[in-house]
């Protein structure tokens, strides 16, 4: 019935229930992922619902310069950021892009590792994830990442968006997206390294 995105959009503009149903089943999970990483799991539902209301109000103005999914995610990001600002929970970009002192101290004055990275007891991602405790630990760490770092990591690693698309969704520059992603990745790296060394989660 809605075999193309254009037909789906037309159906949504007409207020067709079946079109809403298809759109929700296609995009709700991605929207929930993004909302949860920005505002936390507890209020992600509310943010996504607000995003749907906003999207329906604006769908007739959608200019198709991006895919429908990217447009919807941009609305989720805006709703999420508005909510964070209202609750004064938004972390400044400056704070989120600062160098991680815990990692900076891993190098000596001439920029050499001191100490170097430890060798992990795994050869592949699947190998690492055979330990349920590590999987749970990484989930906990990702939940605890600051809003925009978590959102960037989610869009890149879980949803496979390119960095320039993430800029468009989160409305930040490409260099900031890259730094946000790098900071989040270094935290995950340290977390896995800590678990490999001690058997204990870094968030405990």
């Amino acid at each position: 019935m809605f075999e193309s995105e254009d037909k789906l959009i037309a159906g949504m503009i007409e207020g067709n229930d079946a079109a809403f149903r298809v759109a929700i089943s296609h995009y709700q999970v991605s929207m929930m992922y993004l909302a949860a990483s920005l505002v936390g799991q507890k209020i992600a539902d509310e943010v996504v619902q607000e995003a749907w209301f906003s999207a329906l109000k604006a769908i007739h103005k959608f200019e198709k310069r991006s895919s429908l999914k990217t447009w919807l995610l941009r609305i989720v990001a805006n709703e999420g950021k508005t909510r964070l600002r209202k609750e004064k929970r938004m972390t400044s970009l400056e704070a989120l892009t600062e160098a991680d002192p815990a990692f900076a101290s891993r190098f000596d004055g001439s920029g050499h590792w001191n100490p170097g990275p430890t060798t992990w007891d795994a050869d592949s991602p699947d190998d690492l994830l055979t330990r349920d405790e590590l999987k749970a630990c990484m989930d906990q760490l990702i939940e605890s990442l600051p809003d925009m770092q978590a959102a960037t990591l989610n869009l890149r690693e879980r949803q496979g968006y390119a960095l320039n698309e993430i800029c468009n969704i989160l409305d930040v520059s490409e260099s900031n997206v890259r730094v946000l992603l790098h900071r989040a990745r270094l935290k995950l790296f340290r977390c896995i390294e800590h678990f490999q060394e001690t058997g204990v989660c870094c968030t405990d």
Partner: protein
Amino acid sequence: MLTCKDVCDNATRHIEGQSGLWDRIGLRFHLLICKECRRFMRQFRMMIGTSAKLNDLDQPTDKEIDELVTRLVSSQD
């Protein structure tokens, strides 16, 4: 000449294909002579692969979709 700190600071830039030619050559040269950075880059890539495989959210149920559609339709009235 790149330092280990440069390699670490620019790991995401390299992996995302945003490094220039000279940076890529510098990185290759550094990795040839530095086993700690080879280990770091290998494990950093492994970590990226791992974070893509964490918990999945469930698809919304038919009931949840129906409820949301009802709210959306009534909001348009």
